[in-house]
């Protein structure tokens, strides 16, 4: 075999390896982008649901609910609201709870947990929604009228004086992809993470004189 042909074989070999590497990079980048979109969509769905519930905290058609807040800690919040705007003024109790003890077994990700949304109707019936969309963190903090952080874990049931002080909530939600994006040749990788944070000032908490 002559030198020219041999060199061309070697160069062609390098070329093929490069093509394979490039193909892997493009595929990884594509899957990362798709997974990012997917994670953000999931995050948006959950955050929208939380925002709608929190803004309606303490709402009733003819005034405010009494009490408004029942449980307020860093992973659980329970409040009253006429969430379905029913004409009979019936008030539901809404609970958002991040179950740190309840992992999602159907995904590869070991960090995701079940986020519960429970609506308890006046007749005692409960509608439980198990949110299994890759939530890895759900954190709530509470602020007073002056924007000062009260605590992230208030006594249960929430003390009346604290209830009057409480005006704002800060919620942080972290969602991760169900599967890893492989970045290393040994199969190692990372989960795509998306974070949503928001500080709420529910309108029904702004004036407390009517609440008690």
């Amino acid at each position: 075999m002559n030198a020219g042909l041999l060199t061309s074989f070697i160069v062609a070999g390098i070329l093929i390896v490069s093509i394979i590497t490039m193909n892997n990079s493009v595929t990884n980048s594509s899957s990362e982008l798709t997974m990012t979109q997917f994670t953000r969509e999931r995050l948006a769905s959950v955050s929208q649901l939380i925002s709608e519930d929190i803004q309606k905290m303490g709402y009733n058609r003819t005034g405010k609910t009494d009490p408004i807040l029942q449980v307020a800690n860093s992973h659980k919040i329970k409040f009253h609201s006429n969430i379905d705007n029913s004409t009979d003024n019936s008030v539901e109790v809404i609970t958002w709870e991040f179950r740190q003890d309840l992992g999602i077994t159907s995904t590869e990700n070991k960090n995701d947990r079940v986020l519960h949304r429970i609506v308890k109707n006046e007749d005692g019936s409960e509608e439980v929604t198990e949110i299994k969309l890759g939530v890895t963190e759900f954190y709530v903090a509470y602020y007073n009228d002056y924007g000062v952080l009260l605590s992230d874990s208030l006594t249960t049931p929430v003390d009346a004086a604290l209830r009057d002080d409480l005006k704002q909530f800060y919620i942080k939600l972290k969602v991760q992809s169900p599967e890893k994006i492989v970045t290393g040749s040994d199969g190692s990788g990372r989960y795509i993470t998306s974070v949503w944070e928001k500080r709420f000032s529910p309108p029904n908490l702004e004036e407390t004189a009517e609440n008690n």
Partner: protein
Amino acid sequence: MAGYGELLQTMAAIVIFGLILMSANRMIQRNTMMQVEGELEQEVVALAQDIIEESRTLEFDENSQGEVPPTKIPDDFTSPANLGSDKDASNPEVDDDLDGDGTVQRDEFDDFDDYHEWKDTLETAHGRFFLDTEVFYVDKTNYEKSEGRTTFKKIRVNITNEFLKKSNADSDTEYYLEFIRNYYAD
């Protein structure tokens, strides 16, 4: 020259592949930038919203903090030229510099317009964000900047980040988030 034809063809293939590779690299880079930008923009919104919500909890004006509202509204409010945090060591009731260190920090603000001309760098899990806020009176008919006192104030939060650049320039993208507050709606 036997075999060198193949070598030339392989070299040509490398050139073609190089062009494809450059294009693929650009695509990967753009994808990564989009992901990073999306995540950072979410943080920008969260930070601005946090400041806006915090400012809402404070009094509308330095002169509306007493138990009795000002006699003349809006004439008794702070003049547009004096908006911002108040430093007057001779008058402790007005002075916002509670710890006496010569600067008024965010946790010392006590009214809505104290955020005027406030600049800060916020450290987050997503890196550093540079903040510049402005508060001014707005006309109640068109919500545009007013030279005189009105019962409406607008806060404009400007946030930049070193990784959020304009598409064809080295300059930072500036994000503005605004909120209008009405004295009578408090």
